[in-house]
């Protein structure tokens, strides 16, 4: 039996929010990958704490890592288990990073298949696992098909048909040089490729939105101690989830709740107050809050309307940076005149009272508006792709760019065709394998071939 040559990665725990998300990596590149990710080679079978950083160095999560040297692993190959915090968003990010580092998304049942091939399981065990996986993959397939019948499918059909049209136009000149074909029109090929690239980009842009849809918009409440952050969370979720007290520094750990605002799912996270002059112990907490800010899709900056606005510390300002931020001016019930608070320039402000509920409609409207803005501009249809789709589309995008360069540089047409076929294959990973017959159908429909 041939040894697999590629390294695969996938979520080993069921998708969704669990206490723990375990990502499994298996294959010959695993030791190198472990070294790249976590420094020196980890000793086998010892669980270690480590920071998971993306290719560009950004911290994703602190994780538990275990390295298994083949053949003493589930799959019988060198493999790695990475346990994160059960946050599907982060798990997804880690997977995407692993793909960027050269891993391939595992097919359903592929770990088991490798385990079996490496003699780690007998046939009956493997069959039992495969039965299970098969049932699951059928469901996944059904789900995927459902999506393919829907908006994504329609988009893909347009993309594939357009590409087949270009390919047919290119192939005709390769395969039928003797025919009386109209003059080659490289300009229109270039234009169509450009259109395809734009459309592919649009679909790619929905990748993050897909996560937002599945996992919720990560909304982080920040502000000075005692500004009323926990009160805000409680009123938004509709019950006393977080402890509220007149004592500053009440909230120490993060509190997370899910809720629906308008058509959007939100993951609301309450944080410890940001003290402009923190004590040493507080500093640690602030660091943690900064990490949450980094992952946030939406920030709710709570200010106490009765206080002059405390200056935002430069590191905080830097972190808020380009995040979508909504300023919530709280405790307006205590105001008689105008508020002494100076709100940061350029940000939308809503005036509320977490105590009385005043201004609540404005608040939910403002949140909905911000959430709507996350929806990528892709007509009125709702499309959201997953990480596997994104990986294929990214490859397609690369191929389209390279193809277009070849057209402009007037490079040999068979090389252009080679790029286009790569793109077609990538599209095929989403829409199902595309047989060459379909290209030929287009070719013979477009050109009168046949001497």
């Amino acid at each position: 039996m041939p040894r697999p040559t590629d390294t695969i990665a996938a979520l080993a725990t069921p998708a969704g929010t669990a206490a723990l998300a375990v990502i499994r990596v298996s294959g010959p590149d695993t030791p190198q990958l472990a070294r790249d990710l976590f420094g020196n080679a980890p000793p086998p079978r010892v669980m270690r704490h480590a920071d998971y950083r993306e290719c560009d160095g950004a911290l994703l999560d602190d994780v538990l890592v275990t390295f298994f040297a083949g053949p003493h692993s589930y799959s019988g190959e060198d493999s790695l288990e990475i346990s994160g915090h059960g946050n599907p968003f982060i798990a997804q990010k880690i997977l995407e990073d692993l793909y960027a580092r050269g891993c391939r998304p595992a097919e359903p049942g592929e770990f088991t298949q490798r385990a079996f091939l490496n003699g780690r399981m007998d046939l009956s065990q493997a069959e039992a696992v495969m039965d299970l996986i098969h049932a699951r993959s059928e469901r996944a397939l059904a789900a995927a098909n459902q999506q393919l019948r829907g908006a994504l499918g329609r988009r893909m059909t347009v993309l594939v048909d357009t590409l087949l049209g270009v390919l047919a136009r290119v192939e005709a000149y390769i395969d039928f040089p003797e025919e009386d074909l109209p003059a080659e029109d490289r300009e229109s090929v270039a234009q169509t490729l450009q259109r395809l690239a734009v459309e592919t980009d649009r679909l790619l842009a929905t990748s993050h939105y897909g996560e937002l849809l599945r996992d919720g918009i990560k909304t982080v409440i920040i502000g000075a101690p005692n500004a009323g952050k926990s009160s805000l969370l409680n009123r938004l979720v509709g019950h006393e989830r977080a402890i509220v007290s007149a004592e500053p520094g009440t909230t120490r750990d993060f509190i997370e709740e899910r809720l629906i605002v308008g058509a959007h799912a939100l993951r609301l996270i309450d944080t410890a107050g940001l003290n402009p002059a923190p004590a040493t112990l507080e500093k640690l907490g602030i660091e943690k809050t900064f990490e949450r800010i980094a992952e946030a899709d939406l920030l709710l900056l709570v200010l106490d309307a009765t206080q002059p606005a405390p200056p935002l510390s430069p590191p905080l300002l830097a972190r808020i940076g380009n995040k979508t931020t909504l300023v919530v001016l709280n405790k307006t019930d205590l105001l008689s005149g105008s508020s002494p608070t100076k709100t940061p320039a350029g940000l939308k402000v809503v005036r509320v009272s977490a105590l009385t509920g005043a201004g609540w409609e404005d608040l939910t409207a403002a949140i909905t508006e911000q959430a709507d803005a996350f929806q990528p501009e892709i007509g009125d249809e709702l499309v959201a792709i997953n990480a596997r789709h994104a990986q294929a589309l990214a490859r397609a995008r690369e191929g389209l760019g390279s193809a277009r360069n070849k057209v402009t540089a007037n490079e040999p047409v068979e090389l252009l065709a080679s790029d286009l076929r790569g793109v077609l294959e990538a599209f095929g990973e989403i829409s199902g394998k595309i047989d060459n017959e379909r290209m030929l159908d287009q070719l013979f429909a477009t050109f009168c071939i046949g001497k």
Partner: protein
Amino acid sequence: MIVCGAGHAGVEAALAAARMGASTLLLTGNIDTIAQMSCNPAIGGQAKGQMVREIDALGGEMAINTDVTGIQFRLLNESKGPAVQSPRAQCDKKAYQFRLKHTLELQANLQIFQATVTRLIYQSGRVIGCQTNLDIDFHGKTVVVTTGTFLRGLMHIGQNKNEGGRLGDFSARTLSASFLEAGIELQRLKTGTPPRLLGRSLDFSRMDEQKGDVAPTLFAFHDTRSKDDLFHVEQSSERRIGWVPGENQVSCWVTYTTPQTAEIVRANLHKSAMYSGEIEGIGPRYCPSIEDKFVRFADKPRHMLFLEPEGRSTNEYYVNGLSTSLPFDVQLEMVHSIPGLEQAVLLRPAYAVEYDFAPPTQLFPSLESKKVENLFFAGQINGSSGYEEAASQGLVAGVNAVNKARGVAPLIIQRHEGYIGVLIDDLVTKGTREPYRMFTSRAEHRLLFNHGSAELRLLAHAKNHNLLDNNRLKLIETKKERVEHWVKWLEQSSTIGGTWATAIRRVTGQEGVGSLALPNEFLREPSTVRDEVMYRVRYAGYLDREHRHIVKLSEVEKIKIPPNLDFLSIRGLRRESALKLAEFKPYTLGQASRISGVNPSDISVLMIMIEAGRGGTGQKV
């Protein structure tokens, strides 16, 4: 072994078998039409030209036969990259035939005999011989059937119908029944051919001339570049047919249909056999009749036609592009509406022909029938079209019929090794709805298939199956060494501003390479070596990409599926896939993965099953 039929498939099958040392009988209904070009008198062209070179690389006869009977040579796509350049030749139709007939007559271990096969003789699921119209029975260990369009062949000219596989020839009527009896399914296909005209009735001054290349690109790899060497191979003492390749080339002529032609065709559409529903078979999309062209591309003002001479010692011309099943009087009127053909005399009318074919998914990749052991099929009976496609299959079927009789593993060319591999895999895995013609676009690894590399790509197969003599093997091996040596050298040795290879990739065009002052030692290599080296260096990035892709794919390609595996009893396999697999009986996991409707998790399940059976049946190809 016995070969039934002496068309382009049959002659390659018989020659390959006899050259491998097997005692071979070639049966044909008419010895005078051996290797007849029933359609246009040309060999090669896009993808087909590469296939002919592959046939040559495997010891076949088509290449050399074309070289010495060719009357015009052209390299197509010369302005494009090497991978898609294809040699093409017009041949002297009679010389082509006679030379092949002579070759067969002189071939040791081979006997030709004129008789029409009427039935196959079966015994417990195997074929053991055949009966003929002369009531003489023949027995053999294996039988190769290459009956072309002759199975229940029916020709249409308007409402006129004639039985036969080709104008003037017979139809094999009873053989179809003999296949059905063995459980082999048959279906109908259709093809057509244009009229033939008398040259002296044509006005060539009204047409555009198309000349051959001054420096012809030939098909055979060895000894064809120098005249002396050629005659060395040709053993001129024995051969009297053919001439020095590329000498005294003749021209083809180009003309166009007129609005009047279109009008005539439209007015008579209802009389066309195809448009009046007389024909049930499916015709090819790439070779539409003139009726189809005017109907489907109504806004195209004119259609191009080529007049191709049928030989040096005949005045007959083939009108490429004017295939039709309109009645004779309409054909005449139509021809006369074309510039240069106003006074044309028709020697033979155009006609459409319908015939039985046996859907090729009933075959193993060795081209042996899945239904009847020791029975092999090649050529148009498998649903293909074209001399080159037929010859390729004939060669493989002939080799494998011998291998089968000897208990040796079959010759199976992979999809990444050549067009022949793509052809056979497509046929046996996917089948075909129309007469299957090769296009370069069908090959996913087209970039590796430059025609010059055919003998390097197929060397291992030629060696394994003893298809070439030692002298030639040595020549190819030396060429391979030289090519590999120089590629390595150019990639590693430095010149100004980097390695030679990067310098080559930087400059564009042939002229640019000339400015590089490559080492003399390299320039002294034969051009076949230099061309291949330059191709590999210049396109290294692309070729690497192809090779990486192949490595990935070949993992599943290597895993053989035991022939007796009961797909329907495999747990975890979806019912739909199990049925498909049971129907197609794939040979390797790679083939299974190309069957439509079989998905990756089915392949995983299969892989596990096969691995489990490894103790006993599983084996690598």
